[in-house]
């Protein structure tokens, strides 16, 4: 299965992401520059983390209006799997692909540490290799990860099962409402999450808990058929 990584100036975790995608899929992901108008055919499209345009305006706001985004929105609507991590999550919310917004961390500081994530659903293309209710370790590294949605939206996404990942065991490091760490779009093919599963894929990184998320992405037709 093929994957693609969207690149905006100022993103900086694209190499970490490429490693995770390559290890899980066996293929090198295509790197797509933001000025392109079309993303090459891919089963999985990822917007990685970093500081697009320095985050000098609202995080992700400028990137969300880049030329490549029109095609990303089109492909998301067509059902292609889209994952946004950290700044990528912020960009996807700014682009209107996901509900809610990411605000400054409640503690007002950048925070890099390990958190624990509870998997709310295992019946998604992002979490098929986890069990429902399972808690796994993943690092975070962000200054603006405080997820917020108005009460109506919150009730809707909670009711529709769009909250996929939650900070568990008191590890909500940024003040996110309902401990939300990752949300799906209504169709379930777009996931945005603040933590970095791509930095927990190797025993040398302290664990492999994050790798199953990438294995889930490429679980493929064989698994679906089984």
């Amino acid at each position: 299965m093929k994957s693609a990584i969207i690149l905006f100036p100022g993103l900086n975790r694209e190499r970490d992401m490429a490693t995770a995608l390559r290890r899980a899929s066996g293929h090198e992901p295509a790197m797509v520059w933001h000025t392109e108008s079309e993303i090459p055919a891919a089963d999985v499209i990822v917007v990685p983390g970093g500081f697009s345009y320095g985050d000098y305006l609202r995080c992700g706001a400028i990137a969300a209006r880049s030329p490549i985004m029109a095609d990303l929105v089109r492909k998301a609507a067509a059902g292609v799997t889209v994952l946004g991590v950290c700044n990528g999550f912020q960009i996807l919310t700014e682009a209107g692909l996901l509900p809610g917004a990411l605000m400054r961390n409640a503690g007002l500081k950048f925070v890099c540490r390990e958190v624990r994530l509870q998997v709310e659903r295992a019946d998604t293309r992002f979490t098929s290799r986890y069990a429902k209710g399972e808690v796994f370790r993943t690092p975070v590294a962000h200054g603006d990860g405080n997820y917020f949605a108005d009460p109506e939206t919150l009730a809707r996404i909670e009711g529709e099962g769009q909250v996929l990942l939650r900070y568990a065991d008191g590890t909500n490091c940024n003040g996110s409402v309902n401990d939300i760490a990752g949300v799906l779009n209504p169709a379930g093919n777009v996931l945005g999450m603040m933590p970095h599963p791509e930095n927990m894929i190797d025993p040398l990184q302290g664990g492999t808990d994050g790798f199953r998320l990438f294995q889930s992405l490429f679980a493929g037709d064989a698994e679906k058929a089984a």
Partner: protein
Amino acid sequence: MIPNEIAITPELVADHGLKPEEYQKILDLIGREPSITELGIFSAMWNEHCSYKSSKKWLKTLPISGPRVIQGPGENAGVVDIGDGQAVVFKMESHNHPSYIEPYQGAATGVGGILRDVFTMGARPIAAMNALRFGDPEHPKTRHLVSGVVAGIGGYGNSFGVPTVGGEVNFHRRYNGNILVNAFAAGIAETDKIFYSKAEGVGLPVVYLGAKTGRDGVGGATMASAEFDEKIEEKRPTVQVGDPFTEKCLLEACLELMASGAVIAIQDMGAAGLTCSAVEMGAKGDLGIRLDLDRVPCREEAMTAYEMMLSESQERMLMVLDPAKEDVARAIFDKWGLDFAVVGETTDDLRFLILRHGETVADLPIKELGDEAPEYDRPWIEPARPAPLAENDIPQADIAEALMTLIGSPDLSSRRWVWEQYDHLILGNTVQRPGGDAAVVRVDEGKPKGLAFAADVTPRYCLADPFEGGKQAVAEVWRNLTCTGAEPLAITDNLNFGNPEKPEIMGQFVRAVQGIGEACKALDFPVVSGNVSLYNETHGEAIMPTPAIAGVGLVPDVTKTARAAFSGNDEAILLAGAPADWGGHLGQSLYLREVHGREDGSAPHVDLTAERRTGDFIRALVRDGKLTAVHDCSDGGLAVTLAEMAMASGIGAKIETPPVDPVCAFFGEDQGRYVVTLPESAVAGVMAAAKDAGVALLRIGTTGGDALELGAAGPLKVASLAARHEAWFPAYMRAVQ
């Protein structure tokens, strides 16, 4: 606007930090009165920060070569061979004065500057560290400075995308008016693709790259070479403003540019910006440089030649371009949204010629600007050393209570509050995270080779005895690298001292450099880059002598490194490198300072022969997989070492009653010691090997349980130790909000 023809008065000369005799030297050199732009250029090139005029004589005595050294001091950064056609490129540099004036931007641009030094040479940065010294925690400015500096380092490094993996934070009242912010960066390059600043070829385009030039930082390097007084707040405009987004783009653009073959020489614009970079490129290549300032991209209007030549706007580079590749080069910079402007050319007349609005505003001999800088053999006196403690002077305290005090003290408490604000995981290669002896970073994803990084200095030892303190700083870095199993390769030194015009301060500098040199020679641990920061004084009071040392070690296989955490119950605990009575040097110890409020006694002696013998022995054991945990003894002595090993693992230990006064054994800061653990079954064999190697190795206890028991002292729950250890920093910083 200052006209270029303004008359040069003695006041103007003094305002540029030049002494009357230095100005006379300028007159002799050019045979006429300089223009104001020329005066600015001389002040930029001849200030202490750029010319090393007080320190050069002594820096020349340091060992700078070795079988793996590709490039020693004198370039943007040092370069050391790490095998497989790869090299590590690294340097540490101070940004002390700007960080005191404007902590966020001062620290941020310190990080930006050191990263540029590394990628200017063609290396992609893989790790950063920093060594920070703040004033007394109770001083009214300290919280604000800690908060701003840490946020600034994080703000720049996190956005740029380099993991900040280690460093030090200390507090002492002697830094109340003059904090130290020393930033380190390391990158990886291919040994045959390293880029230098030496220009080659006449008539080639000189190209300006990166961000636009503004008025920020004008006179910064001169400011950094002066003492502070109450007017310091007025100097805020001399602090530059960092833009990590542009730097990240500049990194990617420069690496693409270098790969394209367009670069003949390249130099980042750091201190004194356009002036230093252009003179350096020309003087090193025996070429003149002609610059037309009308072509320099500016972000402010009506900038004068003087301002443009002295601007320290960040994220800029200067390069000599292969003209055949100009289109390719320009396209790369267009892609990254950065400026690319041909601003001059190399010439064969050895002149540094500056044009503005079609007029010559400076015309100076380029070699002399660098080579003829004043060089001083400043008078110095042997620093006074405090008397050693009397033999019976062993102030008593409850061992358990004293340990709790120490691990919760400002200098020994957990630095988690600091390093959690730094992205220490980006790039996915961080194998040992902050908080251990040294950080370990994998070089390439999927390959076993790694590098270890550590930064150390103990300023209170340096104040008591600069020579032993200099030795100790190098030895401790070497020891920390050794703990992980790394082969120590080389160091970068960041020498922070007071006013060198005072013989006692110069004496501290001279003796510390001699100590560093002696340790480097004994440990085959050369200096490959560095930086000198003098005039760290406020109202005439100097900082403690602080020669910060950062070292790099090579780890052949990152899966075979050791960590400080105990790894299991019922394992033997051994003390390596110690005398038969475990230790006992209480002079200048943190125990004396934190428990008894005393800062006296002599600094501990470093026996470099024993240091090397013990370290080589420990490293071999780590690489053979014989040890289950390794940690060196440093600040706070054996008790703190054991507590750190326990806290990192949650596993307790029972330590035997020492053969001497337990205060000496547990809190003495004797050098060259390691605590190691290993399975009971392996003890006899390792003991025998130690005996053969002539290394002291003592059985001192056993791991296990949930408490640390030090001899006859009351047991301390590891959880209580950890709670105390973690408490100080966040509680202290919360008081600011």
